[in-house]
């Protein structure tokens, strides 16, 4: 059992690193990289009809 867990943990670490690297690469290389990386870019809600959206499902 322990060896199985050890193997799974090793796979997990690999997956985690791959996720992090993917995030970095896609954020940097995507054509809309500016909006990917600049998380301050927020949806503006509607606003035009006089309300501010609480959120977008």
């Amino acid at each position, binding site marked *: 059992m322990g060896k199985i*867990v*050890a193997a*799974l943990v090793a796979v*997990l670490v690999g997956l985690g690193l791959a996720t992090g690297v993917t995030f970095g690469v896609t954020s940097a290389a995507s054509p809309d990289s500016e909006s990917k990386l600049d998380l301050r870019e927020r949806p503006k809600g509607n606003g035009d009809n006089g*309300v*501010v959206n*609480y*959120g977008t499902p």
Partner: protein
Amino acid sequence: MTDPGLNSPTWLRRSALPALSALLSLVIVGPLLGGGFVLNYDMVFSPTQPLVPDSLGLGSAPARSVPADAVIAGLTHVLPGDLVQKLILFLAFFLGPLGAGRLVPTESTGVRLVAAVGYGWTAYLAERLFMGHWPYLLAYACLPWIAAAGLALRRGEPKAWVRLVVWSAPAVLTPSGGLLAAGTAFAATGWRRALPTLAVVTVMNAPWWVPSVLRPGVSSPDAVALFDARAENWGGAVTSVLGLGGYWNSEVVPASRELPLVPILTIAVTVVALLGFRELARRWEPAAAILGLGALGVFLAVLGTIPVGAEILRWAVSEIPGAGLLRDAQKWVAWWALPLALGFAVATEQAARHLPRGRLAVFAAAALLPVVSMPDLAFAGLGRLETVHYPQDWADVRGILLADDQPGDVLTLPLSTFRRFAWNGDRTQLDPAPRILPKTTVIDDTVHVGGRPVAGEDTRLPPIRETLAAHGDLGAVGIGWVLVEHGTPGVVDPEVLAPLAERYGGEWLTLYRVPGPMDTATAVGPTRFPVLLADFSALLIVTVSWLWLALPTGRLSGLTRREE
């Protein structure tokens, strides 16, 4: 097995967990600890929050932020409001990992550190922080400590009950936090202590449930579907929830949660944690109950996504007073975070046992896993949140209202729960007026989700809307002042303002006085006595418990006995 930390000096092993917890908190909220306020979605703090009837659930609005508003009002009369906010944010991200690390039944410092990061760096924390749900963050941070107090009760340790009360106190600031704390308390203390636990959590949560019971009204069932858990990636809603995410508002979901590897990572972490839980159950008495509670949290979180479950929720929300709490059901997945972090940490320990060398590397990699797979929680969401200062207009208007004895409440226009000001980077934020102005302030509590309105529950709003539409006398509905907020979406009918007397005009705010007689009996809230009795009872039990824990009562009695 040999713990990689065992060869280290004792002070290093003892300080590793608090130091890592502090580091985690600083990496997440460090950029927010400078001057100014973080104003984002539901998070609004002000220099000095007023204590008004709504703060205690005595107003016409539902007691959603009760007794949080009263407690923050008290704290901001002693400390500056921005300092209070920073303390809360730092502690919310510091206490959680510290408590989780201490809770693991192990001698290994490395395992404690893995549990700490696993609990302190999650999608739940990211999404609730970006949504401004600071009471949830605080409640989440207290859950490991509540579990530890429950475990102490099972072991018959002294002062365990008062520890349970003291660590539940920050969580019960809101209804949802109070229920999260109560669930953990029941699971940790065990069924043999269910009745006394029920008594304690009932009294501690009385400040919100008493006014909620006394206030008639149910919530809109439309919101059930809107506030359901959501899929963050191809893995679907269930996988998102298993990974402690799945919050309904896509605007606050970290971009890294949408990556295609995330569902696979989530399933793998869950499997590893469950394998680790087998070992944890052998070492730790409340393990099964804590795992069961976690499973319940996942079930409740995804209930609304199942056809029959959605119907049940819609019926409950529209028929049972107070069942509106079941909306935004993803919050219950907080219960899943503790078994996930502890199980994963113990699995890491088991894995390290089978390695002839490199154990330190295993612990380091396992601890870094949550961070590298969701890096966009760091530095306040990579700059998503920032501190800002209120324009001077707010202090000026507050000063006028303090100095003028004109009766009546304040109505803010345009009618909208949320604002977007240029001085706050156009962030969506709750109207700050009720938490700044020294009088009861009425805002429109209809919220718009994806452009769809969700009906509010404040019973004062319908007659006020009718009066505004008819250009009638606002004094007749108890409004003595009108505050127009500029630079935020929404329109204000000039004919509404025409009969009013302008008392202040600034770049961001204009304050009007409503002339003529005032009907100050229009605000209808719960009966005062039972609500105040509930507040007093909760305050008493928390104060006595805190004093019992802080003062050397046990030690003094022990000394007395020895002298005899």
